[in-house]
């Protein structure tokens, strides 16, 4: 007599199990999406901050008898004499005109207007120069020069970036809490639907650890399937958006998206985060399954000490 290969003690798939896979997949997708978005916002904010703090500007106001070109060169040389400066660029007439074009229109003759001129100095972010000393020296040597170290903008951006990251992290925490609760309740729901299996196993002499192990194995498979699917979809979505952005660079749509969201590039850390989220969901589901099964067995055993609870065997 041939016997079919022994099947698992828990049914490999049923409606509740499939629904749980979908719930886990959706929650994993949302969690990974939020994680990716927060990581993008953080990177973009750091980028803004870094770009603006990498440069300082020396502004020279025109004055009677001032040789502007010489003053610009002098300011550049003075600044580059400090440790921590890397490079200096004098904004030429053409660049200055382009800068003023939105307000003053095209065909501007700078000679006719008392327009301040700029020297842009690139600095070493890790080892910035002594701004106070530079400011003092400029005031002494070139009273028309004004040093702008962008501190006001950097401070504003830092505060805006930290607020944005804080809000993003808050949303991430909320999504994670929602995910944890959803996964926990969905898992408990499925186990409650399989309570008869726990009871039968218990009554045929299975030890609690055996029953818990069987359920853990089963729910680990379910949660890995669900969370892998959700996380993979999120990762692919980010990858596709990144490809789209790279291919449509310099188009108005892409520029707008870049300005709003930054680049859709998660980097190794982002994908590692997605993988970690997937593992957390799988472990969480498995742990919930174990705790719920142990609690169910406790309940079955507790009926022994409380005759008022007489469910289990039907009364004669």
């Amino acid at each position, binding site marked *: 007599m041939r016997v*079919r290969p022994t099947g698992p003690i828990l049914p490999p798939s049923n409606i509740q199990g499939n629904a749980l896979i979908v719930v886990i997949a959706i929650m994993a997708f949302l969690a990974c999406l939020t994680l990716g978005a927060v990581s993008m916002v953080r990177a973009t904010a750091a980028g803004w901050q870094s770009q603006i703090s990498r440069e300082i500007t020396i502004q020279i106001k025109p004055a009677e008898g001032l040789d502007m070109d010489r003053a610009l060169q002098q300011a550049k040389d003075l600044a580059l004499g400090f440790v921590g400066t890397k490079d200096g660029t004098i904004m030429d007439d053409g660049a200055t005109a382009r800068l003023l074009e939105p307000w003053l229109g095209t065909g501007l003759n700078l000679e006719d207007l008392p327009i301040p001129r700029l020297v842009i100095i690139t600095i070493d972010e890790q080892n910035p120069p002594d701004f106070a000393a530079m400011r003092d020296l400029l005031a002494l040597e070139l009273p028309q020069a004004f040093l702008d170290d962008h501190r006001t903008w950097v401070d504003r951006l830092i505060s805006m970036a930290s607020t944005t990251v804080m809000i993003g992290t808050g949303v991430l925490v909320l999504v994670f809490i929602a995910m944890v609760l959803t996964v926990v309740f969905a898992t408990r729901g499925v186990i409650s639907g399989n309570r008869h299996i726990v009871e039968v196993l*218990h009554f045929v002499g299975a030890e609690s650890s055996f029953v818990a192990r069987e359920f853990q194995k089963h729910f680990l498979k379910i949660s890995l399937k669900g969370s892998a699917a959700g996380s993979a979809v999120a990762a692919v979505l980010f990858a596709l958006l990144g490809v789209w952005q790279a291919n449509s660079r310099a188009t108005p749509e892409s520029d707008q998206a870049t300005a709003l969201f930054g680049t859709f590039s998660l980097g190794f850390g982002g994908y590692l985060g997605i993988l970690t989220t997937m593992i957390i969901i799988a472990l969480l589901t498995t742990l919930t399954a174990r705790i719920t099964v142990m609690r169910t067995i406790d309940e079955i055993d507790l009926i022994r000490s409380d005759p008022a609870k007489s469910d289990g*065997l039907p009364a*004669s």
Partner: protein
Amino acid sequence: MTFDIPKRSFQFLTGPSGAGKTTLLRLLFMSLQPTRGLIRMFGRDLSQIPRGELPMLRRRVGIVFQDFRLLDHLTTYENVALPLRVRGKEEGTYRNDVIELLKWVGLGERINVLPAVLSGGEKQRAAIARALIDRPEILLADEPTGNVDPPMAQRLLNLFLELNRLGTAVVIATHDLGLMDKIDARRMILTEGRLDIYE
């Protein structure tokens, strides 16, 4: 009430509906703890046994539930083999024993069938086979003939008698007088909290 179930004995537990037959069986099966009195099983006071040891004691008791309690996704073979599987035994060590037992209870042709397509009598026999597979010292059966016709009831009774001859103590809870009249066995009659025993 005071009673004992001697080794290798055969008895019916009877009484009107609601008398407490199932409750008494549950107490004997350790799925209900007594609030008063003393139940000793295998030489131990059941109320004093730590929870962790209960599965080991339950393995010495076979129980047949009135509603069978077969797992729907497992075949007859897998349901009957379940007690051995949960004890961690390798399938190769018990496959032939399970098939032999299934043939003995008349389910040799239904080995790979799921419970959904078994008749009431077949389910009952599968539940009995599951209770017997690890050769329990005592078998508790709750209304085992409640869902079958008289010829099948007779067949099941023969099965219990055969099992008893092999050394298992048998307690059958039933209110089927016709079944009890078929053999001369000890009767325990439960009425209004009192147990009368007729040897």
